[in-house]
């Protein structure tokens, strides 16, 4: 029983990342009709916001410790971060410790900016072009972003640990009398994802801006005819989607250390998620994200892999095939979107 609930939790956690990326992808499909193959790269950029901040905070000055030697036998240079020098090791240390949550503050404006520049500078020239061209240009952009990150940060994964206070596990099953020790940060990630998803939905649901955007998603021309500058709003939506992907990336760092190709690892999966959810459907994307996350977790159990060898490797694709063959437009897809 405990194992069962643990896998549910794992599934929700994986699902959080899928859902967040898929949400952004769907926003872009829905509003702009653009297939964005660079979306995974945006997720990766977000994670590297955290890495960058961590690096910046750990910028150090060197003092020479004569008592110790380095690998070449020279006196050891001891590095002390400037923040520790300025604020003392206590406060300075805890600032560095909280680098990941702090980097959210940087990531939001940065990612929205990246999204804005991307849309204005590149994507907007591709609205009227075939989807194939959109794929090519965004894929090219993804490669470029990835290689730039690799150039500065290398190919190895880089640890971005959570703050010490959020390290470790907590038994969340205690009230139910279950033994459910689960990492705190993973809980944080799940709650964070739920918060973001809720935020995006209520933004679209309850603000006039959101209503116009939703109307535009349903029928762009008509809204345009009403004299509303829908393009500006869509640009903002692109920024928002980039922001969501970026935040998903920032917070993902402590779960698995970021590397430059993490975006590509998620890209294909999140496309599958979006399509299983149904093109153009935001709730569909979120639902499919969590559903596939949970299914993937259960397929990884020994029970599943001994029953059907290799099921853990193909489950997502298998489910995608079954869903698409039984529900032609995914779980909640709209008719006619991206079917041509």
């Amino acid at each position, binding site marked *: 029983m*405990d*194992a069962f609930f*643990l*896998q549910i939790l*794992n*599934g929700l*956690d*994986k699902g959080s990342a899928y859902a967040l990326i898929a949400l952004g992808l769907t926003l872009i499909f829905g509003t702009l009709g653009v297939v964005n193959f660079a979306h995974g790269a945006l997720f990766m950029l977000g994670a590297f916001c955290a890495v960058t901040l961590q690096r910046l905070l750990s910028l150090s000055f060197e003092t020479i410790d004569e008592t*110790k030697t*380095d*690998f*070449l036998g020279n006196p*050891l240079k001891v590095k002390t971060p400037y923040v520790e020098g300025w604020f003392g090791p206590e406060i300075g240390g805890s600032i560095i410790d909280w680098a990941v949550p702090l980097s959210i503050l940087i990531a939001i404006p940065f990612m929205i900016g990246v999204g804005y520049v991307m849309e204005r500078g590149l994507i907007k020239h591709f609205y009227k072009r075939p989807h194939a061209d959109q794929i090519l240009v965004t894929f090219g952009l993804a490669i470029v972003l990835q290689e730039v990150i*690799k150039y500065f940060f*290398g*190919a*190895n*994964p*880089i*640890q971005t*640990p959570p703050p010490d206070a959020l390290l*470790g*596990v907590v038994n969340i099953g205690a009230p139910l009398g279950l033994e459910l*020790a*689960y*990492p705190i*940060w*993973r809980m944080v990630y799940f709650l964070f994802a739920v918060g973001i998803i809720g935020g995006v939905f209520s933004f679209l649901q309850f603000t006039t801006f959101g209503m116009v955007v939703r109307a535009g998603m349903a029928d762009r021309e008509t809204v345009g005819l009403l004299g509303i500058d829908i393009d500006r709003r869509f640009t903002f939506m692109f920024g928002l989607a980039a922001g969501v992907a970026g935040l998903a990336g920032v917070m993902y760092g402590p*779960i*698995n*250390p970021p*590397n430059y*190709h*993490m975006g590509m*690892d*998620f890209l294909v999966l999140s496309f599958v998620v979006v399509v299983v959810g149904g093109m153009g459907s935001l709730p569909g994307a979120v639902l499919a994200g969590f559903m596939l996350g949970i299914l*993937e*977790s*259960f397929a*990884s*159990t*020994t029970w599943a*892999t001994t029953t059907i060898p290799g099921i*853990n*490797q193909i489950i997502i694709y298998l489910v995608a095939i079954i869903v698409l063959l039984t529900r032609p437009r995914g779980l909640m897809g709209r008719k006619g979107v991206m079917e041509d």
Partner: protein
Amino acid sequence: MTKMDLTRRGVLKTTAAAGAGLALPTMFTSSAHAVTNDPMGGTVTLGFNVPQTGPYADEGADELRAYELAVEHLNGGGDGGMLNTFSSKVLDGTGILGKKVEYVTGDTQTKSDAARASAKSMIEKDGAIMITGGSSSGVAIAVQGLCQEAGVIFMAGLTHSNDTTGKDRKANGFRHFFNGYMSGAALAPVLKNLYGDDRKAYHLTADYTWGWTQQESIAAATEALGWETVNNVLTPLASTDFSSYIAPVLNSGADVLVLNHYGGNMVNSLTNAVQFGLREKEVNGKNFEIVVPLFSRLMARGAGENIKGIVGSTNWHWSLQDEGSKAFVKSFGEKYGFPPSQAAHTCYVQTLLYADAVTRANSFAPCDVAAALEGFEFDGMGNGKTLYRAEDHQCFKDVLVVKGKENPQSEFDLLEVVEVTPAAQVTYEPNHPMFGGDEASLGECNNGA
């Protein structure tokens, strides 16, 4: 038009039937049989085939640094590095057999196809007479097979699968790096000392050939000491999150987790395992332990804090205090500003060993070089006395058991050596069942045309 000069630089020439098979004016075909692997002119070209893109790009970059250093030393530049400590003294810094060493580089992308394409271009286009490098066993085996067919020598880089010198061994291929079996044999006694002989191990294994041979080796070695293998779960190579594999460990009754993962897989699975609080757990009245059989410093760096106190094995580490290691660390460190990785070490050594063998054989012909390497015993290269065994072209040397350092002094100071397992303890029969048994054979040495 200038004069027409017909030769066979023909690097991939194996059958005499070929030319005759096609009706061509005889003036266009040459009947002269030049030895392919006889580099013309005053230079000799080596091919360094390392991952430059993809997840192992950093490891590849370090290998490339080592190769450049080796070439510098062979050509008499720098401080000579291990040339000064190498037990064989035939290399004098004038290149190889008096020919200046040049090199070409390529990108394996850690894909067999791309690696073979890259190696082929080195052989066909640049006339490389030796190919070396790589950071995964799949690539090593693929390129080794290619070199066998093409008739050039392959000096493997980082490859840890038993198969490289086991069932896929080739007469033209040589491996200096250690392997899964050796890791198991070296680790088992140490694990017994540290954690006792009554342990229940849970294996997570990367689901491809290297993972399987590694798991098989470790399980066999630990079971021989009385450990019980509770479960072995195969994880897809493409996995990025291991939570759903780690969670079941908690309730499995196991008290040791063995992570048969490498690279990004290992970094993530270890991070996840630590996240789930495995290391703070007590099972069966014992502390829960995690073992990572194959360590590298670059991986340790990726794993960060999580590596502390974790035991594993490694081929070489820069903190070794023998003369060879010190000389290598010094020249590498002075050139690049940081200590070399084990991948860099094995690549450097392989290059020197090749150059030495050519010099001793006084020939570039692969079969002569192979003969010079077979059964060659040497020292001063960082791993103590080492034997290149003739039967399977595997080096036998001491294996290091290491542990993640609790209080690192610098960003490179991540591992400490727990024990140096002597070569005798990790030696096995050439026809060991894990290495292809009696069926495994090197085949015929291929000299090219």
